[in-house]
């Protein structure tokens, strides 16, 4: 199984703020890697690097061997990207959006496949509406539908479960698993730790731009003597039990 995404000693600063500091890791074909980290820890920055949107100051980001800085267009063709911020054409209808995305990525999907995906995600009743009128979760499903049509070999999903109801989240998990079984590799970020635990083959925890922990969920729990992944997360990201005392004493 080859690497689908490789970060090699990646560094990035915005002004005087060092956002990514020497990050190196690999996502292999047939593997789901979940990237966990507090807000502002650099997860989205790393994800955008796979598309060449953000260029590292130092180091290399490879997507199926393609340098994302030197050849961002080729990297974008290979990556199925779900941005955290829901950016879609709000004035288009779902089918118009899917037609456009399919055309850009050269997808040869037929109407039957589209109908299958639309029904699977429960989007049919919104078919006549503009995407801008849909709820947060439904907009995410529209982006998902465009990714499902493409069947990408590299999945980079930033906060993919945010705003999704449990049944839609289950569909996404199954879809990702199925693609991975077929040889794809997935890099996912989420703040929902039970989901991370359920889907991850490997978990990476990033804190202040550095990978502070890495391993299978069970290995990490054993290593830190924790029952839940949440405990591991809190320990490695420097959460102090004193914080809880401060919260409790807030209105005293």
């Amino acid at each position, binding site marked *: 199984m080859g690497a689908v995404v490789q970060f090699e000693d990646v560094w990035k600063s915005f002004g005087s703020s060092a956002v990514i500091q020497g990050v190196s890791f690999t996502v292999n074909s047939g593997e789901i890697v979940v990237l966990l980290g507090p807000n502002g820890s650099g997860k989205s920055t790393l994800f955008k690097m796979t598309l060449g949107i953000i260029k590292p100051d130092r180091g290399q980001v490879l997507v199926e061997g393609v340098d994302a800085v030197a050849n961002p267009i080729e990297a974008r063709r290979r990556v199925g990207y779900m941005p955290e911020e829901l*950016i879609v054409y709000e004035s288009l209808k779902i089918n118009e959006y899917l037609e456009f995305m399919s055309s850009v990525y050269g997808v040869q*999907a037929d109407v039957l496949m*589209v109908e299958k995906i639309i029904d699977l995600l429960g989007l*049919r009743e919104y*078919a006549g509406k503009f995407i801008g009128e849909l709820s947060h979760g439904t907009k995410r499903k529209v982006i998902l539908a465009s990714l499902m049509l493409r069947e990408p070999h590299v999945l980079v999903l930033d906060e993919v479960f945010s705003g999704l109801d449990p049944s839609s989240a289950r569909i996404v998990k199954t879809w990702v698993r199925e693609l991975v079984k077929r040889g794809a590799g997935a890099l996912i970020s989420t703040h929902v730790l039970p989901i991370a635990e359920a889907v991850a083959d490997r978990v990476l925890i990033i804190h202040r731009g550095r990978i502070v922990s890495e391993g299978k969920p069970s290995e990490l729990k054993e290593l830190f003597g924790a029952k839940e992944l949440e405990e591991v997360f809190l320990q490695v990201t420097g959460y102090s039990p004193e914080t809880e005392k401060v919260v409790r004493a807030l209105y005293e």
Partner: protein
Amino acid sequence: MQLEKELAKILAREVAYRSYRRYGTQGLLITRRVEPSVWRSNILMAIILSFISIFTGLVPLLGVGRLNPNVAFAFSSVIMIFFEALMAIFVVTSFTSVFMAERITESLSILPLTEKDVFKAYFRALLLYWGGLAPIFAFIPGAILGFVTTLYKHMTLVLPVLLCFAGFLIMLFSYSLGIALGSYARKVRKKVSLRALSTIGWLIVFAFFYSWNYIVRYILENITAETVMWVSLLPFVGIFFGYENSYMLLISTAETVIILAITLKWAIARLKVIIGLTPITLITPAKLPVKEKVEVKAIKFKVKPAPLQFIIKDLTLLSRDPRRLANILYFVVIQILAILPVLTSEPRKWSMVDTMVSALFIVMLSILPGITVDIIYYVEGESAKVLYYMPIFRRKLAFYKAMSAVPFALLSSLIISAIIAYISNNATLGVLIFFATLICSPFIALLFSSITMHMLPESPSAWSEASVSRRLLTIVKLVVFIGLIIIAIVSSFLLIPIFGEIAPLVVLLAYLAITSVAGTIAYLSIPKYKPL
């Protein structure tokens, strides 16, 4: 009072920011960076309207034309009232539509504010911090000039008094209409018929903005006794002509009262929608309709080749943004209007001098996509960020955008070529002009599309007028346009004596050579493999 004032300032700033993000425009002199002030928000429009008002009000005082001062002042008053209404509707509609479309009330609904608080803050923001006071300057300077005119000319004092009266009534009407129209902003996006109406509305606004001096001149030069009779029957302005005739006065006043009452009622009803902080479920406890079954709609899905799909996407976005569509259609309409007077003449033999005119027409027609191609970029708005994540090269996108602008040029070219063919009694000439536009306009579009592409941000951003240097773009447009006109005129003069009958063809070839070289150079200046 302090709360309302602060809230009003916040609302005005928020609307300014959202408007800037969407259209690259803000309220006049209102920016999100500076503290809103009554003075800054109203002064510029007040000066422009005062200028129009003084210019129009001077006509009876200086005795321009053959009219007696009473009739001249009455017509001047109509023009002033008209501009007041136009500006007031524009100001109120633009504010309210952004307020509605961006769901600004929703962010207030979580705060402990009453509808009365928001109502007062909305009007305060609109009147004081969005230029809502300025429209009164469309008639006040003119009315003052009217009072001065009564001292020097044989003009009744009733007319300036009536102007003040009508001015306030029209203000009330325009505000009500603007509020009502602006409140449909969200629905406009959904309904084709409302989008069409909105496009026509914006088209009228643009047409009057750009052509007001021609309108004033046309009206003043074409007044007849019959015109006076008809105008005296109109609401709001009929009183200027029918004040001595009780029958006409009655009709005009009755119309005014009815229209005002209907508009006011409409505006009040819509204000509840604009400002309503109470969730709809609480104010309408009626039984909710139960959907018997979910309608199964067939999904239309057909992937076209990328260039065509991009053009379809751009035209679809444009058709759902009436303001931007009207901005493009204005140029189509203005070209057709420019040639309409020619239609009144009979078909005649085409003279060689007309070669120059036809060359100018080719310039005028093919420049259209160049003038409007940047709008095809701005229509992306917030969604432009999507493009940054896609495997698209900047150069290719510049090409697609250029092609999206061409259909509008072909539309006006088709109509104008037909008119020229009819007037000249020369079908070949019509066909020649059409094909000239067909060939030249993509190059001109490519030229300006490439220039716009160079100005766009490197990192994922929304695109609007604020994304590019509009001053630079306008200067480039003017230079290219003037340059092409000069080339067309000079080459015509030079070529007619040399080439005789085939001069138009030579002009066309020369023009094609210049535009194709300029368009191609600009296009090639975008690095071939540079991603968005």
